[in-house]
């Protein structure tokens, strides 16, 4: 098979000859030979193909760069730039390894391109790879650090998740830590960027931003960002109060903030981690008490309408307000300790404005009997997790009386 190089026919013949020589030069076999051994890992191996070398006049990489690894033998120096390692479109990985003969003068190096192919699934990792380098069959052995890659890639950057919404006060800023962790045990990763947080309801927020980690931040194997990455939220008070009054979104959250973190590991193209932060607006306790008190006074209007004297009204108001506040405080404490608060069969959250107001109204409607009502509340089913069991259908063996005799009709059934 003959080899010919093609140049523009308009060029003079000497230039054509020179170009032909240049075209052929990279094809000349280099004097240096290089071999890389396969790497055996748990559940797989990484195979290196035959390196293809060509002579370069100078080393094209910066040997002082953090991404450059170096190795040496008695007569040879080797370099590899991790930033040059990348996956080809059909799956294998390309490496460029530069070799210089110490005994040769000048700055010429041999650039070897090697293709690596994974067999089996294992985590990407940086490991020592045994190589042999030499000339005319006299090979020297050494080890150089190289990244190797598994067949199956997994999410290597792990972010936080929350089972319960994060509470955000209605009128103040909240900082939420977003710890990110590199789940790979032997490969660093690079956080390339963090996109602007996106809320389901943008109108709820005056400020939402991520602070702390910038471009090209590196995470060592197994490392995490701790609390250096923070989500800063500042709600718009009016919109937040509206949201707190009317339940928004799914479950008990008022909004969902989504953050995308773009990252990459050595040799791989980028991936994205999605972090979802559920938030719920929480009024200050003082505001809740004020709302409860207001609800109590509102509810009190009904039983007092035009019937009692002022003194009775004041007494009823005082009792109502005190009882409402105590019930609200008690319900807050108990719900915070994993109890439920139910009113007329509905589960209510005493930390929300509307339920606090409803509680106040309910207590207020009992008027000056609120103290009695308070005692009833203490023994009622408000604090129980399960609703009260229905009355038994089996009649208990008691004496029966006819309706005409005036006996109590309910006693027969207990």
């Amino acid at each position, binding site marked *: 098979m*003959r080899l010919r190089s093609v140049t523009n026919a308009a060029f003079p013949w000497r230039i054509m000859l020179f170009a032909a020589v240049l075209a052929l030069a990279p094809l000349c076999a280099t004097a240096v030979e290089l071999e890389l051994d396969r790497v055996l890992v748990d559940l797989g191996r990484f195979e290196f193909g035959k390196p293809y070398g060509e002579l370069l006049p100078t080393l094209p990489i910066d040997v002082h760069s953090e991404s450059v690894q170096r190795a040496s033998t008695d007569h040879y120096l080797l370099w590899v730039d991790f930033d040059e390692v990348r996956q080809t479109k059909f799956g294998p990985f390309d490496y460029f390894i530069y070799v210089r003969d110490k005994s040769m003068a000048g700055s010429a190096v041999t650039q070897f391109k090697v293709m690596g192919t994974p067999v089996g*699934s294992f985590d990407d990792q940086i490991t020592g790879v045994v190589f042999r380098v030499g000339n005319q069959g006299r090979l020297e052995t050494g080890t150089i650090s190289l990244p190797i890659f598994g067949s199956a890639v997994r999410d290597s950057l792990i972010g936080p998740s929350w089972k319960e919404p994060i509470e955000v006060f209605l009128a103040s800023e909240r900082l939420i830590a977003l710890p990110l962790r590199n789940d790979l045990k032997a490969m660093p990763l690079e956080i390339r960027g963090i996109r602007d947080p996106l809320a389901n309801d943008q109108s709820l927020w005056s400020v939402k931003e991520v602070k702390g980690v910038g471009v090209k931040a*590196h995470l060592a194997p197994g490392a995490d960002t701790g609390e250096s990455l923070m989500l800063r939220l500042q709600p718009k008070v009016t919109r937040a109060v509206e949201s707190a009054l009317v339940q928004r979104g799914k479950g008990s959250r008022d909004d969902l903030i989504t953050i995308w973190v773009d990252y990459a590991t050595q040799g791989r193209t980028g991936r994205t981690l999605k972090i979802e932060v559920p938030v719920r607006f929480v009024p200050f306790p003082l505001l809740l008490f004020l709302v409860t008190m207001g609800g109590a006074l509102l509810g009190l209007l009904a039983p007092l309408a035009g019937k009692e004297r002022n003194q009775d009204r004041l007494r009823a108001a005082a009792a109502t307000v005190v009882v409402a506040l105590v019930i609200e405080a008690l319900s807050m404490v108990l719900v915070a300790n994993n109890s439920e608060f139910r009113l007329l069969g509905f589960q209510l959250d005493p930390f929300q404005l509307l339920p606090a107001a409803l509680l106040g109204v309910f207590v207020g409607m009992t008027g000056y009997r609120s103290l009695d009502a308070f005692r009833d509340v203490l023994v009622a089913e408000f604090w129980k997790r399960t609703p009260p069991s229905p009355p038994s259908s089996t009649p208990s063996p008691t004496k029966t009386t006819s309706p005409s005799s005036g006996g109590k009709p309910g006693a027969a059934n207990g």
Partner: protein
Amino acid sequence: MAKHTILVFSYAWILLVPMSLSAWDPVSVAVLSSGDVAILDSAQGILRVSDGTVRKQLIKNFGFLRPVDFTTTPATDGDSFLVSLKMGQNTNDPFTRLSRWNAAGKQTAEWLLGRPGGVLAGVAVDPARQVAYCADGRLGEVYQIDLRGRKPSFISIARIRNAGILGPLVFDPRGQRLLVADVAKGTIFAISLTGKQVDVLLEGGMVVEPQAMVFDADTDRLYIADGTKRRVWVTTTSGRHPEVRTFAGALKDPVGLALARDGKTLWVVDRFDQVLWQFAADGRIIAKIKL
């Protein structure tokens, strides 16, 4: 736990537009019926280039799947695209598939390979019979799929023993055969579609890493982009001793080749430099378009 090494800045990098976030990562190129050029980019989908400028994003992205290769077929409402896809960066992929997209950017069909351990690589099409061919980069097989069938599925038509990684694939209509390259070994195979016989067209060694191929049936010229030797080879497929020529040009990582309809212009997309080259048939550089 190892201490983290974080470079702390006052504010994070704000990135609002997905396209601005992703750099170019071209993997293939094709010529459209209109004469314009389409570039397959793993981050940005399929984009149309005309008059030296990237004009329009025809297909925005492929979701969680990554494109490997593509080809075009003429259709009544414009060209349609056949794209081989795989999930993420896995080389063993149960979700690898061939999908078809129309000129409006809508997906019109998709076919999962459904074979354990297989992953689709190069794709070619016989436009007359509406049959697509795909190389399997892991199993060393070549499949055909009848695009007009009622329930099209992949049928293996050839298996190449001791193959490394099968990659680019081209269809030779006159010879009724497929030409497929082994990316790992540099070998070019010819698969007869009539007898299903597999022959070695070009032994590995001279071509080291064939990442793309395009075939000119009128002149019997096969163009091969070599990623390791950073050049484009040209060879004829007939005769006992095919000759090889090389193209000049500052190629770093040629991954895609496309030939104009008249056969006089060769397009080469370079992944490393993110450049689209336009060459004349004699190797002269006509244009260099920065992506």
